[in-house]
């Protein structure tokens, strides 16, 4: 019986993670501005903060990053590496700080988005150093992405908090 419920929980997580990546791809196609958002990153941070299980957060970040890499044509492992680290750091932060406070969430989402952009770019350049994107231009994109992710993340976190409080 316990095994069935474990399978059910894992299944729900898998469906949720696939949905997040698929929606990121489709919404970016339909609305160009949506490409500045990073739903998988927000999802990694949220699960890291709320689950209190670093191993699961590492697994979630890893799976989300690998799916992103596969569908984006990026070098396999770059987003996986970055999201794994973010999942882990979010889980650690969740156990050390009060992540229910909006200010903590703002800082975390902003810094994690910047860190993600930097790490993915560095890993990409290590494998393929011919990228011609000017660093200044990329940094501007990261800042915009970090701001938008923070705003969306705050909204989604608040919504999930209310939803989970209502269902428990």
């Amino acid at each position, binding site marked *: 019986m316990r095994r069935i419920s474990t399978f059910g929980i894992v299944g729900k997580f898998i469906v949720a993670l696939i949905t997040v990546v698929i929606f990121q*791809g489709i919404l970016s196609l339909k609305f160009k501005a949506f490409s500045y958002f990073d739903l998988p990153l927000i999802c990694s941070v949220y699960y890291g903060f709320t689950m209190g299980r*670093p191993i699961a957060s590492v697994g979630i970040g890893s799976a989300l990053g690998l799916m992103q890499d596969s569908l984006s*044509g990026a070098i*396999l492992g770059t*987003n996986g590496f970055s999201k*794994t680290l973010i999942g882990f750091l979010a889980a650690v932060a969740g156990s050390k700080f009060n992540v229910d406070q909006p200010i903590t969430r703002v800082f975390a989402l902003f810094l994690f988005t910047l860190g993600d952009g930097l790490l993915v770019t560095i890993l990409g350049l290590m494998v393929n150093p011919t990228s*011609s994107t000017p660093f200044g231009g990329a940094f501007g*994109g990261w800042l915009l992405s970090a701001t938008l992710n923070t705003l969306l993340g705050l909204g989604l976190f608040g919504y999930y908090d209310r939803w989970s409080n209502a269902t428990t």
Partner: protein
Amino acid sequence: MSRTVDTSKRSVWIALGVAMIIHTGLISFQASRRINTSFIRVWMVDSLAPVEKLVDRTLHGVTHVWENYFALVGLHRENEGLKAEVDELRMQLEKQHEDILESQRLRKLLSIQESGIGKTIVARVIGRDPARTNQTVTIDKGVSHGVKPDSAVMTPQGIVGRVIHSSNFFSIVQLVLDSQSGVGVMHQSTRRQGIVKGTGGQELELDYIDDDNDLKEGDVFITSGLDRIYPKGLPVGTISLIGPRRGLFKAVQVRPAADLGRLVEVICILDHPDAVDVIDPTQESPVP
């Protein structure tokens, strides 16, 4: 109690280490190209892209129903005096209009198919890069349809990009806007050759042109065919801005001819006389 905590901490570090080693291994295998990791991507794309296609189709259907029914319900409320027959006719008209637009689009695509640029296939764009690191889109045609890495992709307006990864039924297309994309081009009137590179933004950048003194805004560039990916003579874009000289060349921005922000259907060129021979269709593209 402390032993339990230590064991738990240790397993966290082990999980993190294993995940990091897997990702680092994947990255280094692709960098060294010693081990072919393309099967992982093929498997992932073949598993995820059908879901993406299903969601895309569903959204398309819902939008269609919304535009052709619910929007008219609003109009009906505003015009309560109108007869129901008028509503029905309007709905039919809307649907026919949509059909006409679609048939016009497909006719344009077909005319290109018959223009002698080689063997082609029409594909639908079902998703965009979910990671924002690359400018790529996913199309619903793969190796089983004849699409392989380095197949050129275009619309009736101009080139779109090239296929960089192909799974059995889906492919990832690198747009010309991608910062790692480069296209051999030719000035339409002077026939001077150069290279147009992606910037990662909305515009392309012209480089390595023989002589840039007489370039002016509005000049058109077409493919030169020298990169052996794109057939010669396809529209690439027009000059949108000419900046000051940077080193040997002027800073020249080119606006893509194809509307890359609104891709719905695209044409994949499966085979053309100047194409590069790809030995293994499932092999990862050499320069992603």
